């Protein structure tokens, strides 16, 4: 669907990437700050000059020296800084996109409803809160009927509650509108929650491209701020009385905060931070921790001088636990040992 080979030199920085998107779904463009994620997005959108080739579906966007100008590419880019037009109100900003959009399947009413914008329409864009402005920016981009959606760290700069709110909107709209999406982020929680695939970047290059679950397992865990693993599980039931959702993980139950927007039987991905996983060698009783999953130690890596990262295989999924070396010795952990992974809390964005 999208095939891009791009090179660009900016002073000392060299972007040299080769990416292929074959499916609809959300692709995380993941990597530390300054690794060229935003530059890649801008080059794909035609906003920054780069050498190379870009093919999207049956169109050629770039084959140096030919390059299609930004306004002729069917991309939609949600900028980190929103870039709403200050001389237009919310409705005016949305209509700017509608008036220039080619025919497409995204309906105005659906976008307004999905992002709860109806009451904001007559508002001036200068008075919007961070979360509101982001919703307007996302809606404006969707209404330009993009065939390739790109989002540049849409949760950056938002406070915790706006983050949660926007994350909810994003997970709804990516499934609802089903566009091939490139989602730039350096936050592993976000990526695990939203993205089906990962394009992992480091200093201007793509170092891995795989499904999110597989890519996170392969990640050099020292390069990310939060060490952890992504697991996938199906919803077995909702316990509204306790505001919990039960997930089925190969016959074991995992309790997570209520996910009422998901139906029973649907699969969800979640991120388990290594610092939230505790290891026990025996089945424990009398603990407040509700999540206890039996597994086998798959590997052990010394991390800092006094810590060990233990990979635990539970059914076909991999979990990480971060424990002290002292604890690892006291429990005589070794590869192949049966253990129980106790999960203190489940991060759900």
């Amino acid at each position, binding site marked *: 669907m999208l095939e891009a080979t791009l090179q660009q030199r900016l002073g000392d920085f060299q972007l040299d990437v080769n990416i292929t998107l074959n499916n609809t779904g959300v692709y995380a463009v993941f990597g530390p700050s300054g690794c060229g994620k935003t530059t890649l997005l801008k080059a794909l*959108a*035609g*906003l920054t000059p780069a050498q190379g080739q870009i093919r999207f579906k049956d169109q050629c966007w770039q084959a140096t020296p030919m390059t299609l*100008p*930004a*306004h002729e590419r069917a*991309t*939609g*880019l949600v*900028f980190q*800084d929103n*870039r709403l*037009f*200050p*001389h237009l109100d919310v409705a005016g900003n949305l209509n*700017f*996109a509608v008036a*220039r*959009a*080619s025919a497409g399947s995204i309906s105005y009413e659906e976008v307004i409803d999905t992002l709860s914008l109806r009451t904001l329409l007559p508002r001036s864009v200068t008075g919007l809160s961070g979360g509101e402005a982001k919703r307007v920016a996302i809606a*404006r*981009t969707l209404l*330009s009927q993009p065939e390739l959606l790109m989002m540049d760290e849409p949760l950056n700069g938002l406070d915790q509650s706006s983050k949660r709110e926007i994350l909810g909107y994003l997970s709804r709209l990516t499934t609802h509108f089903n566009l091939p999406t490139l989602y730039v982020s350096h936050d592993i929680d976000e990526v695990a929650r939203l993205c089906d695939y990962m394009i992992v970047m480091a200093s201007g290059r793509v170092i891995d491209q795989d499904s999110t679950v597989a890519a996170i397992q392969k990640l050099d865990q020292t390069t990310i701020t939060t060490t952890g693993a992504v697991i996938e599980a199906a919803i077995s039931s909702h316990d509204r009385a306790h505001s919990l959702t039960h997930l089925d993980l190969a016959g074991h139950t995992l309790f997570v905060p209520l996910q009422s927007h998901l139906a029973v039987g649907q699969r969800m991905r979640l991120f388990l931070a290594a610092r939230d996983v505790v290891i026990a060698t025996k089945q424990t009783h009398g603990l407040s921790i509700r999540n206890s999953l039996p597994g086998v130690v798959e590997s052990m890596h010394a991390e800092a001088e006094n810590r060990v990262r233990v990979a635990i295989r539970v059914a076909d999924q991999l979990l990480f636990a971060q424990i002290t070396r002292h604890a690892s010795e006291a429990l005589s952990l070794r590869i192949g040992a049966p253990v129980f992974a106790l999960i203190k809390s489940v991060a759900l964005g």
Partner: protein
Amino acid sequence: MTELTAVWLTLQLAATTTLLLLLLGTPLAWWLAHSRSRARPIVEAITSMPLVLPPTVIGFYLLLLFSPNNPLGDFWFTLTGSTLAFSFSGLVLASMLYSLPFMVQPLVNAFAAVDVRLREAAATLGATPGDTFRNLVLPLSKRGFVTACVLTFAHTIGEFGIVLMVGGNIPGETRVISIAIYEQVETLNYTQAHILSGGLLVLAFASLCTVYVANGRSVLRLN
């Protein structure tokens, strides 16, 4: 009354000059605001020359340029059968040159203030560069346009030296208000001079008020 003819002529001159400069100054200001060419500072300097040169210097060179011995003057003469010197058309040309910085500078400032990031956003929404200019840059530079037009109009009304040099004092053709005032004072006709001068004073004040109101609290900068 001949003084009414002078007032009418002055307004015509100022309106024509403003309109033509708007058409010429907009692309020039856009280029000055965005070009990375090495010629840019030189073009900018030429544009600002009328701010520092005595009007008589500009007038003198224009007179030479308007002469039928010169290619421009000759071309005009073959085209229209009259000379540019001492004609309304010559005055318009001279005023355009003289008021050029008053049109261009506010527009350059206004264009430079329109964030390139907003233009990028417009492009990703499918707007062509022309579309972006009309529907994003123009509305965002509205104050700059008001300032530029009012200043150009007012400055053209107030010019004297250059008119005297290239236009002379032909009623209905080149005798503008400032020339009329000079003549009234020379002939000790102070009542007429008062009416015309007072009128210009009020007009200048009203124009500048418009500019400052349009620009909100910001201080007017020409450079």
